[in-house]
């Protein structure tokens, strides 16, 4: 799983704003639990340094964030009951409101990036609104199994979007503290972070919503089948 995450991050590092690590790790933690999730998250956080370089602040950020991520989604998957119906609409409404506020009020980023930032904020707003509408449609017909899966995927997509926002916010705390930025420099770093955060949040929400049902099926199948070496050992013993 760690190799899959590394390949996904490396390949998509050439495509700005697109990432699949969230969707892959989320589905893995949700189905394999806290222990497997945290082990994978820790291994991924450390091994990715061989590709992207060893930066202490980034190592701390990844170790804290992805272990918290694995802990939360591992716990969520291990509960054995669906996510409360109010969670998804509330999160989507908050994120849509935040995106609309950023697009309308504007942020003090480079004047040359304002159109790009507004575009990304509106994109996030429309994706969150679309998910919200879809969630209510699914909620209306939740008796059917397929629709329940869709609701679960939408709820997880909203949580993934929230976690992605938290990733940038955590970076806004760790990096300025690590390098000893002044207040103005830290604020500048915070606002510049929106340039990456908005497209990543859109990418995380869409990829989780689309890929979670597929990944859940793949990981679910892998979890049920016994490890191949166990079969060989049993056969050898006979």
């Amino acid at each position, binding site marked *: 799983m760690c190799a899959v995450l590394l390949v996904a991050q490396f390949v998509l590092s050439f495509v700005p*704003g697109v990432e699949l690590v969230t969707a892959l790790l989320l589905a893995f933690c949700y189905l394999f639990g806290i222990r497997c999730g945290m082990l994978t998250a820790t291994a991924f956080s450390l091994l990715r340094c061989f590709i992207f370089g060893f930066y202490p602040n980034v190592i701390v950020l990844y170790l804290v964030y992805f272990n918290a991520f694995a802990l939360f989604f591992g716990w969520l998957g291990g509960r054995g009951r669906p996510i409360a119906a109010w969670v998804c609409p509330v999160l989507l409404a908050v994120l849509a409101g935040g995106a609309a506020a950023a697009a309308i009020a504007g942020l003090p980023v*480079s004047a*040359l990036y304002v159109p790009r930032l507004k575009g990304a904020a509106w994109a996030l707003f429309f994706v969150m609104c679309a998910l919200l509408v879809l969630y209510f449609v699914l909620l209306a017909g939740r008796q059917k199994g397929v629709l329940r899966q869709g609701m679960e995927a939408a709820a997880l997509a909203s949580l993934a979007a929230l976690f992605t926002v938290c990733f940038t916010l955590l970076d806004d705390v760790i990096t300025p503290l690590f390098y000893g*930025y*002044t207040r103005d*420099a830290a*604020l*500048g770093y915070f606002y510049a972070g929106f*340039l990456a955060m908005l497209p990543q949040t859109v990418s995380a929400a869409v990829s989780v919503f689309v890929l979670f049902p597929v990944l859940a099926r793949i990981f679910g199948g892998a979890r049920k089948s016994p490890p191949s070496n166990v079969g060989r050992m049993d056969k050898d013993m006979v």
Partner: protein
Amino acid sequence: MKGNIWKIIGAGAAALLCMAPLAACRPSADIGNARVEIRSSDETCVVIEVLAGDNTKSLYDALSVLQKDGNLTFGGSESQYGFYLTSLNGTEATDEYYWAVYTTLESLDETVYSSASFGTLEYEDKTLALASYGVSGLPLAEGELYAIVWTEIDA
């Protein structure tokens, strides 16, 4: 004889005086309403001064025009934070070194463009601070200096 020597010296001095403005002439380019001039350019450092500003044009636009005119070469790729410069005047970024962008432009319209707490660079009698943005996020503000320097990572 003595008079001839003085004539030769005088002619030489006159020739030097005539050539002085030509020697001081630096490569420059017009980008929109902005005008930039290369103060220095080699394999490890490029310094650009904005003689006339245009806040709708970026340092990337200036580099593009200067490259088109044959005054420098650069390369890179698009990233989430804009254009990421990976080579300049034939020198490629490595795992240990990158192209850092410094500027005298601290803030403009309540937006912070550089901070001394990121790092500083002394150039002639001026102090430039490490920029908050890459070359495509820095506007060409009048009178400001922009330096792109081959820098050791975590130096």
